């Protein structure tokens, strides 16, 4: 049956309202204070580190994000850990919250399609995440310029921006997951808990599980040297099911120009290579392209799940 009118009518209105709600909500303020404090802490640590062994590094600015001084982890690894939390905070009650506030039936009775509601919620969340990440990145760069007294190189800027886009995609995956859970689960508290559990499993336990699974699927045969590589590749494949792993790999390749590969390297492959020589920025971006595509795909799959469930949901649930 063909329906009249555009499914996107009102999407932008809902997205802007969602964004405004998020930006003024106490929940978002709390999470952002947490992120900001950790970001400043880790960046400060990195700057101290850079000052101690101020070498002639062409990519000083990238070290701001990857450099870690004990006991603090680096800015990048903090992001990998905390960005999902921000995204979950934005999305966990996107749909079931409207039901529990009894606003859903009223909104759906407006002259818009259901599609616009879900698209708007996702876009609104993504917009806020984008603003937050951009602000963080600008703050970090500003801090770097102030404390190091050096402007960033153009390569560092491009890599930094690519990292920003990758982070936004990573946040999008978690936002889509949170919205999907808020559609499937009726109570907002339950959907928040479910999202947080998945976050814990993926960011903490998955790296422990992957080697175990790989050992079980492809045990190492001491007589066949290739079996070691098979096991490693299987382990890597399993680990890459987690968006956290994909994001970690992207971070590593984008922020460290000397990183050339993520898989095993044979000695003959290194023949003629200058160890530690930086890779051109475009080459690094090409290297992370599969990871980036995987992240976008995960986001689309989760959003589609939310979309299908939401379209079939009864209004008086």
């Amino acid at each position, binding site marked *: 049956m063909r329906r009249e009118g555009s499914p996107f009518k009102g999407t932008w209105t809902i997205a802007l309202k969602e964004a405004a709600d998020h930006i003024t909500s106490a929940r978002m303020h709390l999470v952002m204070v947490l992120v900001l404090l950790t970001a400043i802490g880790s960046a400060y640590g990195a700057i101290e580190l850079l000052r101690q062994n101020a070498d002639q590094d062409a990519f000083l600015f990238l070290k701001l994000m990857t450099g870690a001084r004990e006991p603090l982890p680096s800015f990048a690894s903090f992001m990998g850990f905390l960005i999902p939390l921000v995204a979950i905070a934005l999305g966990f009650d996107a749909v079931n919250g409207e039901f529990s506030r009894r606003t859903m039936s009223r*909104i*759906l009775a*407006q*002259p818009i399609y259901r599609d616009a509601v879900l698209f708007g919620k996702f876009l609104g969340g993504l917009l806020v995440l984008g603003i937050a990440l951009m602000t963080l990145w600008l703050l970090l760069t500003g801090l770097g310029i102030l404390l190091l007294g050096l402007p960033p190189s153009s390569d560092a800027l491009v890599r930094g921006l690519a990292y920003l886009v990758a982070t936004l995609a990573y946040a999008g995956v978690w936002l889509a997951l949170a919205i999907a859970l808020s559609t499937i689960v009726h109570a907002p508290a339950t959907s928040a808990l479910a999202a947080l559990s998945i976050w814990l499993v993926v960011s903490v336990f998955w790296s422990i599980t992957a080697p175990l699974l790989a050992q079980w699927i492809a045990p190492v045969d001491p007589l066949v040297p290739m079996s070691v590589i098979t096991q490693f590749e299987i382990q890597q494949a399993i680990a890459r099911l987690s968006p956290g792993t994909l994001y970690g790999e992207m971070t590593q390749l984008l922020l460290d120009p000397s990183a050339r590969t993520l898989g095993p390297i044979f000695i003959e492959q290194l023949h003629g290579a200058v160890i530690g020589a930086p890779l051109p920025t475009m080459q690094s971006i090409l290297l992370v392209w599969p990871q980036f595509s995987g992240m976008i795909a995960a986001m689309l799959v989760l959003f589609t799940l939310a979309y299908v469930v939401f379209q079939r949901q009864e209004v008086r649930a």
Partner: protein
Amino acid sequence: MSGTVIEARGLTKAYKGRNVVDGINLTVKQGEVLGLLGPNGAGKTTTILMLMGLTEANAGSVRLLDKDPLRDPLAVKQAAGYLPDAVGFYDSLTARENLAFTARLAGFADVDASGRIGQALGRVRLDGVADRKVGTFSRGMRQRLGLAELLMRDCQIMILDEPTSGLDPQSTEELLGFIADFANEGRTVLVSSHLLDVVQTVCTRVALFNRGRIGFVGTLAELAAKVGGDALEIDLEAESFDAAARLSNLNGVDAVIGGDRRWRISASRDLRPEIAARVVESGGRLIALDAHRIGLGEAYNRYFRENSNAA
């Protein structure tokens, strides 16, 4: 003035294999106030959702202003406004901001909208609190804000689901006043309620829902004639008298209910003299005897009692 605006044919909706709405036919003309009455769970809200196209029917068809709510939902929802049962607003926004949001969704330009919003809020007497957060609003104020939203969008058809439930008598009276005004302006209003007494003053016609079917559609006079007729109810209070045994054979008595000292006798004519005579004859002491014509509320209750007995 009398074109058909809503037409439903054989509407059926099943949840988990049970027909919640079972073959409903309904025709509503412009300017009518139709009361959808029936106990909770009779299928009123589901019918409303199907009329609005918010729920897909398993069978049957709906034409709303000659459009199909499933095929052309935007046009239908533009013309018809729906005020859900216990409507919710965004508590952290003011009344004006809440309406501004829906105005934008309805596609009004901001300049146009602010005038419409001010007017609508004024009509439902919320202009004094327009810039207060809705979180502080009472239930009655929320319902009025819901009406303001429909007014602001200038809906020709207004479908109100249990608008009076949980309101105090003054707020109810006020709300009914607004509904009557809307009808006078030529808008069509559907009001659902489980209480007939509340909405009978504004309804031009009522539809009685029972177990997913419409048992009766017509004016209140028709309802009273159908269910009540000329029937009377006689309240009797007497001592040392067995009404059930001694009155049930009296010509004209339909039923005797109650016991001990008080009874209610349904009769087809005024039997007070005969009843008094019986009481005295049998040596009982007559304390009170009172006859009254059954009201619409009673007719309505009786309608559902009879139907649930029959089912």
